[in-house]
């Protein structure tokens, strides 16, 4: 059994690009696709109240109702245990970067809940990966010194990693919407065929909020 953990970004991204069917095709007997309650709030519960995003929210809700995307209870993780772990993760991450004597709150509950779920699964030796389009969370765990430099440059003041506890949270693995559509294309699971299909799919994910450069798209196309 392996678990694909979805942050809000890839669901929103694929919904806006009419590619949500990819999740259904990627799901297999030995893989569950899971979202946390906080992510569900962001992609379904809250936008359902806003007419402009109602359709997208309904599409995502349908995937949950049909069991394509599940909540953590499906794999035996209670809302309470996830909530407790999320609070710990949130507290550790938001006590990491410091400037002028103040810790900077860089992440919110939704992203922290994905990390918390990944941590719980890894502790249980269950293979998992987090799909997340936004850059901050990935950068913190993959190259934290980059976040330190980026924030120092943007804020025009020295931002330092003042606490290294985040490094003990685990070795997280991250992919983004572009990698999801890339895999779907490679496995011939997308409805779009032809020479230019992959490029079109990758750029579509970029323009709906995935943090990916043109150079990265070029290198993925070559694979």
């Amino acid at each position: 059994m392996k678990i694909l953990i979805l942050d809000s970004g890839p669901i929103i991204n694929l919904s806006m690009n009419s590619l949500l069917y990819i999740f259904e095709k990627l799901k297999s007997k030995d893989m569950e696709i899971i979202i946390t309650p906080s992510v569900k709030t962001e992609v379904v519960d809250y936008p359902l109240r806003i007419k402009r995003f109602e359709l997208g929210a309904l599409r995502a809700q349908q995937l949950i109702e049909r069991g394509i995307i599940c909540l953590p209870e499906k794999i035996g993780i209670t809302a309470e245990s996830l909530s407790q772990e999320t609070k710990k993760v949130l507290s550790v991450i938001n006590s990491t970067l410091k400037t002028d004597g103040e810790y900077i709150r860089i992440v919110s509950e939704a992203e922290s809940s994905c990390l918390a779920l990944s941590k719980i699964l890894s502790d249980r030796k269950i293979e998992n990966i987090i799909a997340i389009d936004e850059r901050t969370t990935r950068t913190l765990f993959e190259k934290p010194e980059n976040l330190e430099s980026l924030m120092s440059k943007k804020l025009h003041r020295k931002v330092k990693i003042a606490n290294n506890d985040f490094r003990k949270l685990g070795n997280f693995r991250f992919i983004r919407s572009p990698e999801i559509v890339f895999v779907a294309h490679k496995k011939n699971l997308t409805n779009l065929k032809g020479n230019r299909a992959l490029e079109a799919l990758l750029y579509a994910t970029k323009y709906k909020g995935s943090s990916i450069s043109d150079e990265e798209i070029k290198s993925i196309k070559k694979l």
Partner: protein
Amino acid sequence: MQEKEHIIYVLKEAIQAIRTDNASKLQQLSDQTIHSASVYQDTDSISVAVTIYSISKVVSRKDSLKIGRWNSFVDKISSALGLAIDALEKGRVESFSSHLEKSVKLMSSFSNLKPYIQDVLRKAAINKASKLYEHGISLAQTAKLLGITRWELSEYVGQKTVNNNPYKTTISGKKRAEMALEFFA
């Protein structure tokens, strides 16, 4: 409230910029407020950033919006911001927030501007959220701070260029794609 002196400085400069129709200066001042908003994440800094950015949009489209009583518009907005400064100097934070809110209501009170201002305020919130994201705050956290949805923020952020900035590159696109292939194998 954090960085009170900086907010007072920004608002004083903003009044000058409004009086001289300097929309780009107003946008710069709004961005300056975002630096402290990123660190302290206090609602007042964020409100100042959104309000000044919204005013800049009205100033930049002054002619096309055909605001008949422009001088009166400038006087009223400047007066509201002046009262906000005064309240802040006296440490009356609630009164400060109320005068800032009043300046937004004043923009809407110019009858032909009402529908436009609602749109400007929403876009200003999205713009400021994307600036916070550029400053290293996560998308979910910025959406929460600005009271907007991840849906509208994702779309806006997608229009921004992501170049091969060394600060933004963590692992190569090739390596991540291979990791994905391996996971889904």
